[in-house]
């Protein structure tokens, strides 16, 4: 019996690769200012923000595209966009 080649795609992180390499600015959370309102999580297009072991938002830099919506929407300005390539690495 012939084996049909059927183009079924399965859900998986990184469908377009490790999109963290697209990033120009890196969001860095200042936990002293964070009030855990979760707006950053709510607006994150990429679902790369989750709750870390310490209860604060945690960013998955493997996929974070660095759009900065989280920083722009943070009501306490607890997220700073730091240029990549200055002492940072993925």
């Amino acid at each position, binding site marked *: 019996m012939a084996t049909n080649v059927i*183009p*079924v*795609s*399965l*859900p*998986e*992180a*990184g*469908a*377009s*690769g*490790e*999109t963290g390499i*697209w*990033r120009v600015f890196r969001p860095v959370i200042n936990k002293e200012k964070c009030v855990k*309102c*979760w707006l950053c*999580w*709510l*607006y994150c*297009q*990429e*679902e*790369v923000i989750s709750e870390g072991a310490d209860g604060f938002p945690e960013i*998955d830099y*493997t*996929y*974070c*595209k*660095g*759009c*900065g*919506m989280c*920083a*722009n*929407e943070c009501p306490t300005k607890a997220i700073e*966009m730091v240029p990549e390539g200055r002492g940072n690495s993925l």
Partner: protein
Amino acid sequence: MPITMKDLRRAGKFVMPGNAACPGCGALVAFKLVSKVLGKDAVYVIPACCTSVIQGPYPKSGFRVPVFNMAFAAAASTAAGMAAGLAALGRGNVRVVAWAGDGGTYDIGIQALSGAAERGDDVLYICYNNEAYMNTGIQRSGATPPKAWTKTTPTGKAEMKKNMPLIVAAHGASYVATASIGYPFDLVNKVAKARDKRGFRYIEILSTCPTGWNYPVNKTIELARLAVDTYVWPLYEVEDGKLRITMRPKRRPLREYLAPQRRFAHLTEEDVRALERAFMDRWEALEKLEAAGRIFV
């Protein structure tokens, strides 16, 4: 009970990170919010649009929901067939979602959409409106606002845009709403309302687009909020024939919304005033419709 942040955080995760969306993609924020409200028992038909690409390439997909990619003009008709098929198979609990851009809704898909709306097919149609053909590289659509630059309106669009949600409402759809990713709780609660109704439901979500509108990528949510606050994108719903404006923010000057967007960079003071008048005319018309009571019958 309205949906709260707590509910959303408990909801499933249907957008996979590392997909092909541009940084700052308003459409993806909209998809993320909608899919969280609809949950697991939903299937999606996606015609040609940005979301065809956002999923990422075969053999992976950036979406953890069943997705059928379809030809441009056929979102509503395909969804109608899916709904009929599911009903025939005794799976009427599964929601069928047509997820289309403004080109696929206002322009090439309007015939199929009109047919499905008129028949009352059991479909939730969501138009994520980024106000032009963005996937093909920024060409004018019936949803492009007047004066906006696109690659096919290099000196600005000469015409007003279609009043699509009201066109759908005039079909007697069981639910019609506008929403903005800048007001996410208004949005998710409208989606929940539509989820729990049967028949043809239509929600149009303003999906700000840094690539096509040419503004800094971090301002996606801010501009989606400003569109509502400047009365460019009124939030309302139509239910039982009655239109209700769901948000009446203190009006802010149109310039605040236009200034960050380079697609409006060529506007003169007079253009801005004319545009403001045009949007206020539409707002006032909405208020009249709201006051009129049951008129979409």
